[in-house]
Each structure stands twice: as C-alpha cells, then as structure tokens.
C-alpha cells in the first residue's frame, strides 16, 4: 500500500505536477459516477472510487463474474459494496493509505500518467486495465508493486468473502450443522 512518504519519494508524481495538470486539464474532476442503487450505504468509497473499483473488479474477476449482463451488474455492485466494507474495517491510518491509492487511481492526471489509463474508468477497455495491473504487478518500484498487491487483496477478499461467490469453486461453506445451530442460537 502507498504511504505518503513513498508517494513523495516517487517525486515526479508530486504536487508540482498536479499543479501542471490543473493548468493543462482544467479543474481536477472525478470520473463519472459508477451507478449504484444507494450511494448512502457506502462508508469509504466515493463515487469516483466506486467507478475505479468496479472497472478493476470487472477485469480482475473475469471468469468469476456471471456472464449474463444483468446478473453481472448486480454481482459487480455487490463486489464494490464488499470492497467498501472491507476497507472500512481497516484501522484509520491504513484506511488513509487506501484512500491515497484511490486518489491516485481517480485523479484525472495521475490516472493518466501514473496508472496509464487515458479514459475515465467506466470507459477504459479491459486490455488497458489489464495492462495497468500487469505494469504495477511487475514494476521495479516497490511502491507500485504494493499498490497492485493492495488491489489484489481488496478485490479478492471482497469477492470471495461473499457466499454467492462460492458457486463454482467446489466449496459449500461452513458445515451444515453449524448453520442450523446458528438458526436456533
């Protein structure tokens, strides 16, 4: 995960360039909102972060997401919600680090120049997103590798933490008698 100090150490990405971005690209603006039923239920993820998480999830969870578009949409929404819950359960300082990472992903300038995604998340192609993930995964910068690992962790924890996601992996959840036991408990 990115720490502030690491971010500053990467230099080029610092505030000065953000200033240039502001100048060159007009006011910093988040990507369009990822459509969700009820934004109020999100604790940590703002609209822009939700778009980014949904796009990244779409690629990282390829093969795991249902094929039918409607089911897929619902699953992705559940996933984004799961990611929000997972992040909101982290200690404050760690949440701050995740938020910095999300800022890096969603800010138009850093999205383009650090992440390498030129279009808003909602419009970015699967290939572009996959390439970004692979670049970070194998980067020589520990900072970017840790960013990839953080995303990997949040995405797969949020997905496989949901019992709906166990379909197709041969795991049928906690022993049945325990489920009954809870019902009566």
């Amino acid at each position, binding site marked *: *995960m990115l720490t502030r100090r690491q971010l500053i150490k990467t230099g080029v990405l610092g505030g000065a360039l953000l200033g240039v971005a502001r100048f060159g690209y007009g006011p910093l603006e988040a990507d369009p909102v990822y459509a969700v039923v009820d934004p109020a239920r999100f604790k940590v993820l703002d609209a822009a972060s939700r778009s980014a998480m949904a796009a990244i999830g779409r*690629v*990282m*969870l*390829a*093969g*795991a997401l249902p094929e039918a578009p409607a089911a897929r949409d619902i699953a992705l929404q559940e996933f984004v919600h*799961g990611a929000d*819950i*997972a992040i909101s*359960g*982290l*200690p*404050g*300082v*760690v949440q701050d680090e995740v938020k910095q990472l999300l800022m890096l992903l969603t800010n138009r300038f850093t999205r383009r120049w650090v992440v390498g995604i030129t279009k808003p998340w909602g419009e970015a192609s699967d290939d572009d997103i*996959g390439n970004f*993930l692979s670049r970070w*995964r*194998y980067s020589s910068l*520990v900072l970017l*590798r*840790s960013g*990839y*690992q*953080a995303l*990997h*962790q949040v*995405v*797969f*924890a949020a*997905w*496989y*933490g*949901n*019992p709906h*996601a*166990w379909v*197709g*992996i*041969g*795991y049928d*959840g*906690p*022993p049945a008698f*325990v489920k009954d*036991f*809870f019902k*009566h*408990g």
Partner: protein
Amino acid sequence: MAKDVIAEGLASGRWKVQDASQLNTDLELTADVVIVGTGAGGGVSAEILAKAGLKVVLLEEGALHFASRDFRLTEANAYPNLYQESAGRQTKDKGITILQGRAVGGSTVVNWTSSFRTPPSTLKYWQSQFGLKALTVESMQPWFEKAEKRLNVIDWNVEPNVNNTVLKLGADRLGISWSHIRRNVNGCMNLGYCGMGCPVNAKQSMLVSTIPSALDKGAVLVTRARAERIVMQGGKAQAIEASAMDGRGIYPSGRKIRVLAKAFVLAGGSINTPGLLLRSDEGLNPYQRVGKRTFLHPVNISGAFMPFKVEGWNGAPQSIYSDHFLESQPIDGPIGYKLEVPPLHPVLTAITMTGFGAKHRSVMSRFAQLQVVLSLLRDGFHPDSPGGNVELKRDGTPVLDYPITDFVWEGLRRSYLTMAELQFAAGATRVVPIHEDIGVEGYSSWAEAKRGISELPLEILRAKIVSAHVMGGCGMSADPRQGVVDVNGRHHQVDNLYVFDGSAFPTSIGANPQLSIYGLVARNASRLAGQLIGRPVDWLAA
C-alpha cells in the same frame, strides 16, 4: 446446541465485564495487578493471579465474543472482528502480511491449536547467548506439563485430513522425518474452522478456559479498551491510561480509562507490547532495546494441484509436521525451517494465489484439488537474521519494520525447493510456489521446478511472505543492555512492570509458539503471584 461458557457466565450476573465502547463517562479503576491483553500470555496470567486472590483488571482492545454462538465461520465475519487490522497487518514495506488476533482470548481464539514445547536447542541457545541460565529443559518441563494439563494438549489420534496427509506422504517418499502434531482441544469435531473461532468450544483457547475462570474469581474485564501508555512515578509504574474504542474497534471514542495498580503485566503480544512501551513515559527504554529483535518465522508458500480431492478446509488444520530441515543443521548455521500445512478457505486462498482474471479463476475453480505446504523459517539465531524493529506510526499505532536479509532469502529459496520436491513426490500434477513471477499453472515436474526456483528473483512483493507467529521485541536477557526484561519477565529498569507474552522471547521459537508462551508465562506469573501474596501459588490447585 453446545454450551456457551461466555453466554452462561454473562447471564450468571457474577462477572464484571465492561464494554468500553458503551462508556458515557471516563472510567477509573484500581487493582493489585492490571493486565494488558487477554491472549496466550494475558489469559494464563489472569487465571494464576486471580486464583491467588489478587484483584485483577484486564484491558483488552478487542471485543468479547460469545464462545461459540458468535463464530459464524465465515472469513468476512472473522477477519474484521477477530484479527488485528482485519487480518491484513503488514510490515512497514508491505513485504510480509501478519496474522494476529484481536479479541478477548487474543490470537488463541483464531489459532490452529498446534502445540509444541519450546525445542531444547532453542532453550540452550538462550542460556548461552542471553544468559537465561534458569530456563533449562528440566526446569521448564513441569511448566509445560501444567499448561498441557490445563489446556488439554493431547495426541490427536484422528486420521489427518488430505492436506496434511500429502505432507506425510511426500516426506516419506523423500525419506525425511515427520511426526504428528499435538493439539489443545477437547471434543474437537474435526471441522477445520479453527481460524474463525471454534464453534463448539473444543479448542481450549483462553476464551473458554483461563478467562472465564479468572472472571469467576472476580477479575474485572474491560473490552474495547486500548492501553495507550504507562504512567511512571518515582521510577515505578503508577497507572495505565487507555482509550475506549468505538463499537467496531477502529477509532477511539474519546472516553478514557485509567487503571492504578501495584503491578503491571503487559501481554498485548509482539508488536503491540513494544508499541505500548514506546508510547509510554521515558525511562522504559534506556538501551533502545524495545521493539528490537522482533521475529516472525517468515513463511513462504507452495501450492500443488493433486489428482484427487484435498478440500483443505475440512478437518483439523494442522496434524502433521516435519522438523527435518531444523534438525539436520546447526541452529546457528544457514537458516532452518519447519514444514507444516495451513487450512484453506476461500478468501485467504484467493488473496494468496497470484494473478487475476481468467487465470486466477482457473485456480479457484480447482480449489478442491489444491494442496498447500508452508515453510516456517527459524529466524533470530544468526547475526544475519536480526529480526525486525517496531516503530510507531503517526497515530501512535505500532508497525514492524522487518527487512528480509539475503541470509533469510537464501533459506526461502531452499524451502521453495524442498516443498516443490515433496509435493511432486506425493503425486502433485503441478506445483505452484507462490511468487508473482511464476505463472498460476506453476511447474509440471520436479526438474522444471528445480530450474525455475533456482533462478527466481527473490524480492518482497514478488515472493509472497506471511507470518502467524510474531515473537520478541521485549526480549529476555541477563544483561540489561541486551534485552528489555529479565528471565522472570520483569522489566530491567522498572520493578513493578512485567512482560508476560510472546514478546519476551529473545529469538523465534523454532516451533509454533503458543505452548512456549503458556509455559513461560505460567512460570513467571506464578512467581509474581507468590511474591505479591507472600506464599507460593499452584496454578492447578483445586
């Protein structure tokens, strides 16, 4: 429905338990002994001190869960509720992920029940290198015996699950020794969910053993209370100041708790106990030893696809181990490692397996065939394995800086080789050492694996390294310049301050640490209790 000792105790109306997240005012308490943390060390201390008739107050940052009813056996529930940092605690450079518990009962609520006495070679090293002459195999034996009796450490005579059987089979075929793991369970139903809290009170964690018994004896338990600092007066510890946490245990609620006591026992576990000392008044760290020499048994991981069902979520998580690579070389030579297997559940498996998209899914769709071996490296016995150092983050919470040295990486490469060879010997069709540079399909033969692993770039955030055994950071030593506490767990500079948890170890243990903590803490807490009441105490007396 199984009996729930916690639900019953609370219902009895006799227990004094305060959930600090519910406090409307600040709280001040007095005690003979205040104990910070209710895990392996805090639990055993609480029972011994309360039984001696002393007035004990326990401060625990985590929550009190019903012993069985609250354990929903899903990772999404367990990690945020029962683990430090939602089971995602990481070293400073994010290179190692650390599992530690955070709940009444500490890590013992979620641990895997493997029970080993401290290896004689480790005790011998402590005697010669740290002057801990009193800790001999003979002198420790009665303490391990007591702990084994109290916590029902037994031979586990049930057929190992398939995950463990593969370890046994592979070891046999390589001609290396293996053995059965003893477990602290009573009525275990072989479910395999120890890491999410045992749902049937079988695991003899502190939550179902020492803590209820201490509460029966009048101990006061304050949950959701994070000890922030030790207040000193005239060279002695005078009070502990704690923050009440919010209901989810994430932010302090603003309410404060203050406990005045005669004696102070720190048992927050490694990383957290040193963190508390570092946040406290000056004079507690004159030789800059606090937080130094923190050890992890760094673990690397090797997955294998078997031509049969493994279902690593079923059955007692750990029942077989091999110490061949600890015993076949000197303790202070190239780093040795213990071989074990982990339980496999969807979240932990999915975040451990590398890659994403269709490739990752193809692994998950074969989840039932996946077998996993772990190597636990014995760190801390060589100058090139000095462990890590605890620092404070800007909000005062502790973080461990643990750079992996070349000496340790060399051992990790050897253990990747061992695990791959063993898994192929046991019939694996493919072996996948968990490393970003190895495709999810891994290797198809031992020859290919051998070549591949020899050339692997060994770096953090490429090789997946984890730990569930944090030890040290307030090490025992005879010489005050070499450690933080003496052989009795007493702080070298402060007479009424004690460290009774895994942080007192001067090296790693070289075996899963819980029984080492129970034994050593039983010895030291009995000593302290005896001193405070002026006559010897017997932990197991009726």
